[in-house]
């Protein structure tokens, strides 16, 4: 064996176990989902693949014939376009605010803000906070101070259901990106701030815009990916807090719609896979788009 082949062999041996398992449990499922999305598959019988003249049947049915899909798509997009940007800015602002604190205090404050996403399961408590009867904390509070006289049906009234999910998702969103921003802020070269002060930077906002943000571009990019991915994957929270289906599908998301078709009694796996492929494409597409925009923005700035 040549020297070079030997060198490669050890590299492949080390990446091998991870990459093989990753291929089996992530790459292959993506392929399976795409392939089955062009079929009728009900688990009992082998999948019937579509011929050329009805090749896109599942996708056509989604967009032309499935009103609940369109509602779920709308909810998912609405949800992502609200929670994505807000959570991103919140991660950045809170990280930036606490960066001025001393290291000891900052450590504890970091824990306080990160705790909800650390113990993600505790979101069940929001079910009791947003109880629709007058036993709920929010209703109790609002009634005591006279904002409302009757309890609001937070988790049942279609005007509020999506909002409840958004609030809870925001509560859970100071996560990995938040930590990355804290680290990015600590990484900024301190002498830049001194130079900036001499160059006439007067307040913290100018400093943030001209010095801090350009110095942590790479973290900003990473954080964007993490927050976008999370914003499009919402389903479990809505299902647990509002229910599946939610009243008039007001808080249904694509993940929930996919599960609806995959599970009993429908077992329309080909169709469910088409939903998965749509969501997959949207998530990847938006991620790439935002990445391009951030790159262009950072080049201009």
């Amino acid at each position, binding site marked *: 064996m040549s020297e070079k082949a030997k060198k490669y062999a050890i590299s492949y041996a080390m990446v091998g176990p991870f990459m093989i398992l990753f291929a089996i449990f992530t790459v*292959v499922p993506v392929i399976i989902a795409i392939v089955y999305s062009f079929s009728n598959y009900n688990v009992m019988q082998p999948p019937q693949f579509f011929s050329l003249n009805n090749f896109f049947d599942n996708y056509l049915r989604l967009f032309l014939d499935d009103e609940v899909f369109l509602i779920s798509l709308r909810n998912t997009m609405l949800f992502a376009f609200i929670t994505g940007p807000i959570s991103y800015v919140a991660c950045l602002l809170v990280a930036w605010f606490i960066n001025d604190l001393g290291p000891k205090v900052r450590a504890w404050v970091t824990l306080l803000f990160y705790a909800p996403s650390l113990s993600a399961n505790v979101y069940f408590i929001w079910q009791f906070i947003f109880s629709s009867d007058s036993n709920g904390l929010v209703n109790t509070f609002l009634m005591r101070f006279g904002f409302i006289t009757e309890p609001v049906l937070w988790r049942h009234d279609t005007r509020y259901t999506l909002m409840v999910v958004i609030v809870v998702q925001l509560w859970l969103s100071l996560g990995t990106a938040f930590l990355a921003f804290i680290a990015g802020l600590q990484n900024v070269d301190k002498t830049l701030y001194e130079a900036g002060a001499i160059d006439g930077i007067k307040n913290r906002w100018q400093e943030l815009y001209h010095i801090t943000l350009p110095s942590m571009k790479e973290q900003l990019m990473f954080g964007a*990916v993490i927050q976008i991915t999370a914003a499009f994957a919402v389903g479990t929270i809505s299902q647990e807090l509002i229910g599946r289906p939610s009243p008039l599908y007001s808080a249904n998301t694509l993940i929930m719609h996919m599960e609806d078709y995959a599970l009993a009694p429908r077992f329309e796996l080909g169709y469910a896979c088409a939903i998965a492929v749509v969501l997959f494409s949207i998530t990847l597409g938006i991620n790439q788009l935002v990445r391009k925009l951030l790159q262009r923005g950072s080049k201009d700035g």
Partner: protein
Amino acid sequence: MGKLFKARIGRKATRSRMGNGLVVFLLLIIAAFMAAPMIYTINLAFKPMGELLRFPPTFFVQNPTLRNFADLSNAVSSSLVPFSRYIFNSFFISIVGTAGHVTLACLAAFPLAKHNFPGRKIMFSVIVLALMFSPIILNIPRYLQMARFGWLDSYFAILFPAMVTTLGLYLMKQFMEQINDSVLEAARIDGASELKVWWHVVLPAVKPAYLTLVLFAFQGIWNDPTPVMLYITTESKKTLPLALTYVMQGGLPRLGSTAVIGFLLMIPPIAIFILTQRNVIETMKSSGMKD
């Protein structure tokens, strides 16, 4: 004059008093929003029945009791599985999955960061691509796979996908890139094999990163009820988050016990974060995406 000028250089110059006030005010509001549900859960866990059912409800506990903890075995008695079993199962899969993930990611990150071999770039791009969608999207094909492998109702179906979470490999690779090549070269010249270099030089240098992977992996597996719901049917193999759902169905009378499980679920990830925080922040400094 010189003294005044000096005082204006540095961070103080850009921090007005009113701005500081605004920042503290905003921080307090967000802190209250973040902390209130956690504090409420802990308070509920220690409330006696009378306070749990009181109308209108109170936020803080007045006469704390441990009754709800003792009541747990009653709350799950109809599932025929002792409560301690759920705790054990949760720890078991979290620890095994974390150990597997950290080992595989540490092994794979080294060649990705420091070797030059065909396919390296593509592999890493695929890893980054995988960060851009949630694995929850893949539940259907994964389920079909696990059925084919005969892994339904088996922990394998939970552990193997959890071991190859890409965030961990990504962070580890980014961190390893900072290791100085001359240190690795020196070890190689001394005759160390790549595996020895990995074990004796690389691993000690990436301690912050593998502690970070421990945190993220443990937290991820510990908190995620989805794969357990999907694959596990035997009650005695289920985990703490499922016990929570189960007890919660008991409604208001079981609110205390539900809160106790919530409280128990909080402790391990928070404890690990307190122990590893400094290392985690250190690791995240190299988390940036370069292009």
